[in-house]
């Protein structure tokens, strides 16, 4: 099948590649760019494990062709740490609040939560739950993911994180 040349910015670096028109963005990221942090859980847009940030929006990369992302600015989980390599507030929050277990949904969940906090730096619990409802986790029951995002929100806003009473 004829291949198309695409260029995009991924985690701040210019990348390019030759792809078939039918190549899914998630396969381009995982196999051509060899960034395997973005995962595939369902291939039907339900689970959110493949979530990446494209031009300021959360996108499920299993439901977008690589050619559709030509010219875009993409951030994946590999681009989420602080510039100095330390864990970002969200990454730290997930660890401190035990917001992950098998780790398979975690990259998509963190990338999604990153955009959520950009849109709303102090979301309520209900807003967090709705905001991550496109991402399925099979291990945690979400309660600690909510806390992880609240932890990050507090840290970003420079306030002390207070766990809600059980």
């Amino acid at each position: 099948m004829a291949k198309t040349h695409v260029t995009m910015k991924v985690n701040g670096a210019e990348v390019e590649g030759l792809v078939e028109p039918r190549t899914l963005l998630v396969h381009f990221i995982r196999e051509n760019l060899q960034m395997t942090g973005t995962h595939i859980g369902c291939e039907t847009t339900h689970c959110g494990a493949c979530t990446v940030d494209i031009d300021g929006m959360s996108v499920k990369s299993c439901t977008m062709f690589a050619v559709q992302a030509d010219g875009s600015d993409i951030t994946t989980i590999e681009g989420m740490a602080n510039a100095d390599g330390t864990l970002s507030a969200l990454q730290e929050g997930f660890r401190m609040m035990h917001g992950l277990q098998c780790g398979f949904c975690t990259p998509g969940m963190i990338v999604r939560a990153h955009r959520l906090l950009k849109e709303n730096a102090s979301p309520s619990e209900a807003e967090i739950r709705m905001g991550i409802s496109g991402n399925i986790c099979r291990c945690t029951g979400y309660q600690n993911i909510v806390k992880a995002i609240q932890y990050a929100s507090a840290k970003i806003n420079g306030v002390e994180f207070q766990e809600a009473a059980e």
Partner: protein
Amino acid sequence: MNDLTPTREQRTAALEGMGCKRKRVEDIRFTQGRGSYVDDIKLPGMLHGDFVRSPHPHARVKKIDDSEALKVPGVLAVITAETLKTVNLAWMPTLAGDVQMVLADGKVLFQNQEVAFVVATDRYAADDGINKVVVEYEPLPPLVDPFKSMDKDAPVLREDLVGKMSGAHGPRKHDNHIFEWTVGDKELTDAAFNKAEVKIKEMISYHRTHPSPLETCQCVCSFDKIKGELTIYGTFQAPHVIRTVVSLIAKLPEHKIHVIAPDIGGGFGNKVGAYPGYICAAVASIVTGKPVKWVEDRIENLTATSFARDYHMTTEVAATKDGKVTGLRVHVLADHGAFDACADPSKWPAGFFNIVTGSYDFPTAHLAVDGVYTNKAPGGVAYRCSFRVTEAAYCIERAMDILAQKLNMDPAELRLKNFIKPEQFPYHSALGWEYDSGDYHTAMRKMMETTGYAALRKEQADKRAAFKRGETREIMGLGVSFFTEIVGAGPSKNCDILGIAMFDSCEIRMHPTGAGIARVGSKSQGQGHETTWAQIIATEIGIPADNIMVEEGNTDTAPYGLGTYGSRSTPVAGAAIAMAARKIKAKAQMIAAYKLEVHEDDLEFDIDGFRVKGLPEKFMSMKDICWAAYNSVPPGMEPGLEAVSYYDPPNMTYPFGAYLCVMDIDVDTGVYNVRRFYALDDCGTRINPMIIEGQVHGGLTEAFAIAMGQEIRYDEVGNVVTGSFMDFFMPTAVETPHWETDFTVTPSPHHPIGAKGVGESPNVGGVPAFSNAVNDAFSFLGSTHIQMPHDFWRNWKAAKQLGAVA
């Protein structure tokens, strides 16, 4: 001592040992997308394999034409049953003593069954090839309803078994019958029922569902023709078992098979068994000489690899009129699909379902299980539970509620009246188990006090009255569940897989600088073993957990273990870890005695080293002992500091818990609201409370899903209608309730550290709590039992049938 000397508390805290909420070491890589899962593996020249699958639930395969497929650019081979027959691999043994087609051999027996395996240069080309394989089928009548499996005129599914009236578990009564398994005293139980003052009988179904971890099943097989070695990277909950199975069925020497299970994205029982994809990828690698990857997609995962449950349990309880149980009689019809591919210990065709007497002192009980074939996917795995334990817990916990309703007694009071008493442990159940320890009354009362149970019942009574007066359209249910699990399989006297006793193992090697590596036969799929196993060692030998690296999943380096499922890791591998650590400690004590110039018996272990009794200043730290182990051991002693332990548990462990679900249901829409869910778990000694809480949250969420909607459903002609996350209920953060957790601690008397295991308790206890809540809500309208799953539509239907909706 001066001010700079750390206190005992500081020294203990520095270890991050058992009982502390140690943050997980795994999370550093997982939060940065640096985990290494099977699909992340890319070997030079690697090919991709994918399946042609059957659209029919039951059909004869007349012809497979791969000529057009082989012309597709990138397609290298199409493997069929005929190809596999040349290496004697068209069929494979299942863990349950049955055999299973690897690829359709003359017939297909369930929709989406594997028919041919297309091998190509990439996954897209493999898909192109699949579209060009032409299969000619002759459809046969499908058998969907397990209650019709043994009808005289039922279509015969397994032609390979025709005339074989005996299977792996005894006589077969019909061509579609797999086994009958009976336990208990029938005569005594029948007698108890004959003289019972009160009896209940109900057919309680536990529907078919699926573990569905977020990462599907997958593997990369790489055969090195020169060395004759096969390396398999795979999503394996039990890597050593896979190695042995591959060796036995592929006739490859076991030392030339290297099985590596890297990071695993959840398992929940789905990744215990061996699937056609593994066999086909291995054969394809042998045929092509190149590494071959197989990654199933979600639809394939839901419809082909290992369902769970599908137990239909006719349950009878006999009791006195004041509510003392006198007998239990259960008959189970078990739908196993087309092949019996249960992942149970080999001698247990219905797993440990004979834990069905639950937490209650039944003087007598009798159980019979009939396994049957249908045109559905094979399996019967333990989806986040020990083998068939969640089915058993659901059965008895529903039955106790039905009995309470009949007696007009409070379900919690009925349970308190019938619990096994603390002084009865070790308790011998009527169906043959020896319960190790428990204090059920304390746990139940703590649940009732913490939740304000009496006040909730009062509120429910008021709401019911208001409903009857027409003032509200909402009904309220309280779901009480008190479960006893049986986990930690298991003692070699009664547990094996294909003849291998179900021990587990640990090897610890301490390095000169006071750090070390522990290799364990278990395999985490998210449970956090790298974190918690190090905590056990830290407490046992006084080396900080941060200085212990835990490695699992490589069969070349880890000692043989039976893997992680059935909550067996802490009870079995956890014990092996403690025992290996104690061997390290015993040698360390000899080295310390030599260095401190005292007799071994004059030393006592003190947090992080050995101290001379009565001379507190004479102390040698474990760190220093590690160094000494490599340069100045006592004369005649071998240098080095390492140990290995294989632990054969003397008994199972029996975690338990008391759960309460408070639910409101709108009768006009069937919409429910889980107002409150309280879970008290007793898993014995607690290694890491943070991880325990996380396990409970996750297990409860799975229980919620199963009870309230998650189902693998077939239509009447055998089409599976729940093949994606659109149709298969997968709760998001919005639907998932808030969880309240609590605990009591009743250590296991036979486990080295008293731990019992926890990962599966919340699934086992949670499902009956949700279902009892729904049933309790509707009971005042005249129902005794409403089948799961309790989705909105079914709730509305129940309300309508009970006359609550016009």
